[in-house]
């Protein structure tokens, strides 16, 4: 394990199509051997960013370097990068063996080396016996594995994957996530992975970047992004977030901020940002699993715990979790997720509840 893959550095990479800016100037550094994901809504520029690295989308401006060498002027076929496409892009006129052998044949390797490498690659994607089949005779998951084998067979130090599991059903997708992860452990390559499934990104990645409107909004480990979203977009994109908008000014206190979200309801909040907030640009984000239920006479515990009273409007049980929608008169309903083992019975719609959560789970973040 001397080499762990390539270091990828993007500086000021920008892509415009006429007047449309598909990618605003972007800086990004991906460490050797890292599994890095790009997530974001449709049209946010994920494929564009990937294309600039692969080489088929020439950037309008900026530098892209792989292990310190600028590759912007290098055509795709000389970059030695591996890529898995969403639609697999297996060649329909070649059998599986020839598909995987294709990059090796281009590199004019001797026949016995080709055979050996293709076979060991098919082995590592756990499909050793399908060499003679045509791609169309394989299932979606199998085709995906062949595409993976083909992208990695020539030992590229950088592997790009553009929504490789987008076409698979949920169960198969989860199975393939683990498989790709294991595969990443076997090959020494840095992986840049695109998906718009946040669970997938969180499961697989060392770090991830959230994109919106052609920009990277925030990047970091899945936990950092979930627990310290930079703004409301990130908070809502990763997992479920309850957002509250302050109705008056935001008041700075010793340990954080105080603001009111409803007449007579003052919440204590913390923020990664220091300095003043105006109520127009700030929102409060509370994760549904941070909220607990309290007895009706609960008034707070003096540690800044926030209390909110409301009525259950919807209750659903899903695999170990009770999910309530509570109307607390703060705009949209508040989601509350509770582990069902700690709740003996389920509340019905119409019942009054008292919600409570700690101040440090109350994040004051900018709207934008």
């Amino acid at each position, binding site marked *: 394990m001397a080499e762990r893959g390539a270091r990828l550095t993007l500086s000021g990479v920008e892509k415009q199509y006429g007047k449309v800016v598909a990618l605003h100037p972007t800086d990004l550094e991906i460490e050797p051997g890292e599994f890095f994901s790009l997530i974001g809504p449709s049209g946010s520029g994920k494929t564009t960013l990937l294309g600039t690295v692969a080489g088929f989308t020439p950037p309008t401006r900026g530098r892209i370097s792989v292990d310190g060498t600028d590759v912007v002027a290098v055509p*795709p*076929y000389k970059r*030695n990068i*591996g890529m898995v496409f969403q639609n697999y892009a297996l*060649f*329909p006129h070649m059998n599986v063996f020839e598909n995987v052998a*294709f990059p090796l044949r*281009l590199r004019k390797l001797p026949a016995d080396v080709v055979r050996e490498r293709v076979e060991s690659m098919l082995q590592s994607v756990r499909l050793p016996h399908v060499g003679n089949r045509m791609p*169309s005779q394989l299932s979606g998951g199998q085709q995906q594995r062949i595409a993976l084998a083909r992208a990695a067979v020539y030992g590229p130090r950088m592997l790009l994957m553009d929504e490789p599991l987008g076409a698979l059903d949920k169960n198969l997708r989860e199975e393939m996530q683990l498989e790709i992860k294991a595969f990443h452990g076997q090959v020494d390559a840095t992986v840049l992975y695109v998906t718009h499934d946040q669970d997938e990104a969180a499961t697989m990645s060392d770090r991830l970047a959230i994109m919106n409107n052609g920009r990277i909004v925030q990047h970091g480990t899945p936990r950092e992004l979930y627990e310290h979203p930079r703004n409301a977009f990130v908070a809502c994109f990763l997992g479920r977030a309850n957002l509250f908008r302050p109705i008056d000014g935001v008041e700075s206190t010793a340990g954080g901020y105080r603001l009111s979200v409803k007449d007579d309801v003052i919440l204590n909040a913390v923020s990664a940002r220091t300095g003043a907030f105006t109520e127009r640009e700030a929102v409060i984000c509370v994760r549904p699993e941070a909220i607990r239920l309290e007895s009706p006479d609960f008034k707070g515990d003096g540690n800044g715990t926030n209390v909110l009273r409301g009525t259950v409007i919807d209750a659903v049980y899903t695999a170990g979790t009770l999910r309530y929608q509570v109307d607390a008169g703060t705009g949209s309903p508040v989601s509350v997720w509770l582990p069902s083992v700690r709740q003996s019975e389920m509340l019905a719609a119409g019942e009054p509840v008292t919600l409570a959560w700690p101040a440090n789970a109350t994040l004051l973040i900018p709207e934008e």
Partner: protein
Amino acid sequence: MQSHGATVTRSPQEITPAGEEIRAWNASRLYRWLLVAPIAFIGLFFLWPIMSVIHRSFVDPVPGLGNYERVLFAGPYLKSLWITLQTAAIVTVLCLVIAYPVAYVMARARGNLFALMTAMVVTSLWTSVVIRSYAWMVVFQRRGVLNQALVATGITEHPVNFLPGTLAVNVGMVHIMLPFMILPLLANMRSIDRSLVLAAGVMGASPWAAFRRVFLPLSIPGISAGSALVFMMSLGFFITPSLLGGPRHMMAAVMIEQQANRLLDWGLAAALSSVLLLLTVSIYLLYLRVVRHAEGGFAHAR
């Protein structure tokens, strides 16, 4: 599956008492009746004339193989068949060479540009072949624009006699056959997934290698369909060779027309027609075999 007792559906046979065969309503039975009219039409206006031509080739003017003996061993008939094959082959190859890049570019075009390009190809089909052949006569005449240009630029000292001649026939036929090559190629190329070519590039294929190893093999169905169409249409082509060809470039269809209409030798015309038909059918069968073989892998891939 079986465990979901309530949702298992049974076919009607299982429910009816044993021994009682049910005649379920069947769409294909209806379709069979719908076929009667077209079959009658084809039989009456297509097969029957062909049969009577073949019949006539054996009995007119006297029963026997006399007409075929003449086709094979006497006169210019065999040579004319050979010229026909040669011309069809040349026209097919030229059409392919010209049409392939055109279709390649068209297949990449989108929106208005694509509509415009398609319109340009298709409108040429709306102009009568006779008119287009006459147009080439104007070009190739002794005092035509081509000769004027050749003399004016000093490439030749005197006007060249292009008419009647092989060059004129080939050029005229290529012009007329071109859409029949472009359209099948276009249909095929538009169905080729361009991301395959991109993928080949990322894996290390230069643009030329990606074309040769990925795009070209995937366009073979288009190449073979277009070539077969143009080749077989060229074999029986009449108007252009008859206007531009003359006695030195006598194609089979022109020869048949002469025998039948001018020399009133119906037996010989029928024999020639039958040989041409046999030739076309054999080439078509050969084509089918080749295509099936070449698409062995594709058959599953589609």
